[in-house]
C-alpha cells in the first residue's frame, strides 16, 4: 500500500516512469558519491540545513528512478560548521578521500571563495545554489542561483513601473558585506543611469545580526517623507531581517507607503515572522512556493512528505539545487561518464525544467537562465507573484553596470576563459 503511494509520488515528482525503490536493480560497481557541503551547525545552519535535506531527497528520488548510468548515487554529508576555512578542508576531504563526483554546497560568498582553490586544484565540480553578487565565473563552479541581473535590476525596474508604484526615491539598505555592497553599487549605477538624482538615493549599511533598527527605520521614514514615492531595496542578510521587519511593522511603515523589496528574504525566512503587518512588501526571486504548476506542486508535496512536515516550505535556493542536480544528471548521461572534467565540458548547453514552468539552460559562463519573479508578502507567510519577466533571463557573470567588469564575459565553451575581456580580446586583462 505505502509502496504504491511512494511509487506514485516519486513518479509525480520526477514526471517520469520509475520502479519502486526495492525493485530497482543497479549495474555492477560501487555507488557514485555526491558531496553535500552545507553547514549543519553554527550561524549558517539556519539556512543551509534545508539544502542538505533537499539534496538527500533528490538523490533518493534519482536512485528510485534507477540512479545515473545504472549506478546508484550515495550522498556524503560534511558539516563545515559555518567556519570558512573548514569549508575548504571539508571540500578537500570530500574530493580526495571520498572521491565524490560532484559537490553541491556553500551558501555565503566567502564559503565559496574559500573552497574555490580546492576545486580548481583537484578539478571537481561545485554547484552553488544561492543568489550572489556575481563578478565570478570559474571553470569548476556552476552558479545555479541568481546573478544581480536576474534579481536586483528587474526588481528595481518593477518598482519604477506603474504597477510597482513608480518609485522616485530609493533607500538601499544592506548588511555590510560583499553581496550588498556589490549589488548596491550596481543598483546605484543603474538608478543614476535611469535619471534618479544622487540626492534621491540613500545607502545604509549595518553589521551582521543587527538587531536594533529603530534609528534606521525612522531614517527611512523621514527619507520617505520628501514628497516623492520612496522604495526600499533591502539586501539585509538573514538574521537581521526579523528584527528589521518587526520594527517596520511596529513603526507602521506599510507597503502601500514605502514598499520594501528584499533579495534575501524567502519563505524560509518569513516562517519566523508574523507577516500580517508586512503584507504587500516584496521579494524578488526566481522561484516562489506559491507558483502554480504541476511540477512545483509535486515537488512541494514530495518535500513535505520527505521531511514529514506538512507545513515545511520550499524556497529559491532549493529550486536552484533541483535544477542543478537535474542538469548534472543530464550532463553525466550526455558525457557517459562521471569524470568531473568531462562533465564540466558537457554541462554548458544542458537544459532542465525549473519549477516555475520554464526550462533553464546552463550557459557558457556557468550561470543559468531563470525567470525573475516579484512576489508580495501575504499574511500566510507566502508570496503572491505580482510580476514576472516574460521569458527567462540569462545570468551575467560580470555586471554591465560596473566600471571594472563591463567589458568582461565568461565563456568556458569557445574561449575557455572565465574573465575574457572583449575590448582587449584577451583572457584576464
Amino acid at each position, binding site marked *: 500500500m505505502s509502496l504504491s503511494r511512494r511509487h506514485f509520488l516519486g513518479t509525480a515528482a520526477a514526471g517520469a516512469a520509475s520502479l519502486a525503490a526495492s525493485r530497482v536493480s543497479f549495474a555492477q560497481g560501487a555507488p557514485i558519491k555526491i558531496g553535500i557541503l552545507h553547514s*549543519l*551547525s553554527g*550561524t549558517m*545552519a*539556519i539556512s543551509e*540545513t*534545508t539544502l542538505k535535506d533537499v539534496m538527500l531527497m533528490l538523490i533518493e528520488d534519482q536512485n528510485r528512478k534507477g540512479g545515473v548510468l545504472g549506478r546508484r548515487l550515495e550522498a556524503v554529508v560534511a558539516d563545515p560548521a559555518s567556519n570558512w576555512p573548514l569549508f575548504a578542508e571539508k571540500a578537500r576531504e570530500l574530493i580526495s578521500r571520498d572521491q565524490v563526483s560532484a559537490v553541491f554546497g556553500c551558501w555565503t560568498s566567502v564559503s565559496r571563495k574559500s573552497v574555490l582553490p580546492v576545486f580548481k586544484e583537484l578539478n571537481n565540480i561545485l554547484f552553488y545554489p544561492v543568489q550572489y553578487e556575481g563578478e565570478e565565473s570559474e571553470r569548476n563552479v556552476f552558479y545555479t542561483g541568481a546573478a544581480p541581473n536576474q534579481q536586483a535590476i528587474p526588481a528595481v525596474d518593477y518598482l519604477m513601473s*506603474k*504597477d*510597482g*508604484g513608480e518609485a522616485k526615491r530609493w533607500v538601499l539598505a544592506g548588511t*555590510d558585506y560583499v553581496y550588498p555592497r556589490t549589488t548596491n553599487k550596481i543598483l546605484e549605477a543603474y538608478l543614476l543611469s535611469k535619471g534618479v538624482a544622487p540626492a534621491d538615493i540613500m545607502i*545604509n*549599511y*549595518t*553589521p551582521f*545580526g*543587527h*538587531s*536594533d533598527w*529603530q*534609528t*534606521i527605520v*525612522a*531614517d527611512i*521614514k*523621514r527619507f520617505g*517623507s*520628501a*514628497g*516623492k514615492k520612496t522604495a526600499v531595496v533591502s539586501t539585509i542578510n538573514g*538574521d537581521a531581517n*526579523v*528584527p528589521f521587519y*518587526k*520594527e517596520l*511593522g*511596529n*513603526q*507602521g511603515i506599510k*507597503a*502601500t*507607503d514605502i*514598499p520594501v523589496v528584499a533579495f534575501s528574504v524567502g519563505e*524560509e*525566512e518569513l*516562517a*519566523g*515572522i*508574523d507577516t500580517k*503587518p508586512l503584507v*504587500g512588501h*516584496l521579494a524578488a526571486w526566481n522561484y516562489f512556493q506559491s507558483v502554480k504548476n504541476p511540477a512545483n506542486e509535486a515537488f512541494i508535496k514530495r518535500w513535505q512528505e520527505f521531511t514529514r512536515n506538512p507545513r515545511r516550505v520550499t524556497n529559491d535556493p532549493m529550486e536552484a539545487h533541483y535544477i542543478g542536480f537535474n542538469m548534472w544528471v543530464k550532463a553525466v548521461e550526455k558525457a557517459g561518464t562521471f569524470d568531473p572534467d568531462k562533465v564540466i565540458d558537457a554541462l554548458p548547453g544542458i537544459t532542465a525544467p525549473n519549477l516555475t514552468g520554464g526550462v533553464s539552460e546552463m550557459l557558457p559562463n556557468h550561470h543559468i537562465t531563470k525567470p525573475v519573479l516579484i512576489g*508580495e508578502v*501575504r499574511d500566510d507567510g507566502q508570496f*503572491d507573484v*505580482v*510580476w514576472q519577466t516574460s521569458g527567462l533571463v540569462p545570468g551575467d557573470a560580470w555586471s554591465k553596470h560596473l566600471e571594472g567588469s563591463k567589458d568582461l564575459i565568461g565563456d568556458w565553451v569557445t574561449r575557455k576563459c572565465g574573465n575574457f575581456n572583449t575590448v582587449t580580446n584577451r583572457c584576464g586583462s
Partner: protein
Amino acid sequence: MTVSPLRWLCACGLWLILAVAQPLQAQPATIPADAATRLAEDGFSATEAAIGLIAASGAPHAVAALEAMADRRLLFWKDPARAIWRDAAGASFDLLTGEAVASPPAGASLVRVNNRLRGAIQAALGTLTLLSPDPQRRLRAAEAVLRSRDQAALADVETALARETVARVRVALLEARAALILTGTTADRPTREGAIATLVDVADTTALTVLRQVLPTADATLKPVIEAGIASIERTMAIRDVAQTVWFGLSLGSVLLLAAIGLAITFGVMGVINMAHGEMVMIGAYVTFVVQEVIRTHAPHLFDWSLPIAIPLAFVCAGAVGIAIERGIIRFLYGRPLETLLATFGVSLVLQQAIRTWFGPTNREVGAPSYMSGFFEVWGLQITYGRLWILVFTLVVFACLLLVLRATPLGLQMRAVTQNRRMASAMGIRTRFVDAMTFGLGSGIAGIAGVALSQIDNVSPNLGQSYIIDSFMVVVFGGVGNLWGTLVAAFTLGIANKVLEPFAGAVLGKILILILLILFIQKRPRGLFALKGRAVEQ
C-alpha cells in the same frame, strides 16, 4: 464568528448615515455589472477600474466588497463574468447585488491585488468610511484620504469635519483637508494660507511631505509662506529628533538592561562567569514560542494572554536549567572563575545544539499580541507599543529584583552568603541552597528577558550569543555587584549608541562604544559605581 454581523451593522450604519447626509442623491442598490467583467479580465489595471466602479456605485455593500478584495476574499469567474466575496465566516455574497449566495459554483479564481491596488482600495474606502460611526475607522479613513489626496473626497471631509467630535480624528481630518486644498487647484489664496498654517500646527512628517510636494508647483507669492512653513516644521522636528534619539536610546538601553540584569545577579552578586547566560535568554524565548504554539492550536482566543502566561513559565524553565547547571557543574568550581567561564561556555554550546536539534535551526515565529503592535504619537514622537512595554517591563523586573534582594529572606541570605560565606554558614544559612537559588534567580530573570526579546529579535538557537558580550559589558561598566550601576550603565550605553549611530553609522558606532568601554575600564577598573574598601579588594 461574530465579525460578519458586525460588519453588516457597520455597513448598514454607514448606509444610513450616507442616506441622511445626502438625501438628494439617488441610492442604487447594486454595483454595475461592468465591475464583474473588469475583474474577470484578471489584470491589475482592469481590477483598478473595477475598484473605481465599485467605489463610485454608492452601493451599501461596496465597503464590505472592497475590504474583501484587500483581504483576498473576493473571487471571480470567467464566462459568464461573475464575482462574489466571502466574509470572514465563510459565507458568500454576490458582488453586484450584495445578496447572500448559497452555493457558489466551482472554478473560481482569487482577485489578485498588489500594492497599487491596495492603495486604491484604501483610498476608496477612505472616502466611503469618513462618516463611519466607529472613530477608529474614521481615523483610518482620514489617513487614507490624506495619503490618496483624492480631490473628490474634499466635500466629504468638510462634512465629516463639521460633525467630528473626537480630537484625534479631527486633527487627521484637518490635515487631510489642508492637504487636499493645497494639492488641489480650486482653493483661493487665503484658504491655502490657512491650510499651510494647519499643517505647520500639526508639524509631522506627513505635513512636511505635503508642503514639500506642493512647493515646486505653488505660485510665486505663496512660495515664501510654504518655505517658512517647512522651515518651521523642520525646526520643530530637529528638537523632536533629540527626544527621539533619547527615546531610542532608552529603548535600546532597556533591552540591554533586560539581557544583563540576570547576569548582574549571577556575575555581579555571585561572581560566577556564566557564558551560558545568553542561552537562558534563548530558553525564555523558546518557552514563549511553545506557549504561543499551544495557544494557537488549542485556544486561539487566548493569544493576547500568551506573554503573561509565558513569563512565569520562562522564569521557571530557565531557572530550573540554571539550578541544574549550578548543582551539576558550577558548585564544583567556586573560586575558580576562569574554569567556570570555560565550563559554562561548553554548556552554552550544548544548549544551543540541543535547541537546534529539537526545534530545528530555523527562526521560529513568535507573534506580537495586539497590545504589543503598532505605535502612538506623543508630540509627534512615535512611540511603538512593543518598545514601550519592554521598557516598562524591564523597569518592573528591575524593581522586583531590588525588592527580592532587599526585602525577602532569600535576598538577605544571598547577601549574607556573598559577603561572608563561612559566617553565613555558621549562622545556620544553608549556603549551598542559597547558591542554587541565587543562580536560579539570575537564570530565571534571563528567561524572562527572553520572553520580551522574542518580540523584537529572532527566536533562533543563535539568539543568546548576540547578547552575551553586550551583557557582560553592561555589568562590568556599571560596576560588579551594583544593580543600580547596571541600570545606569545599560541606559548610558543605549543612549550613547543611539547618539553615535547617526554620525558614525551602526557599525562604526558599535566599534566606538566598545573601544570607549575598553578605555573606560582602564580608567575605572571596577566600573561606574565601584564599591571601595578592603572587603572588595581581597
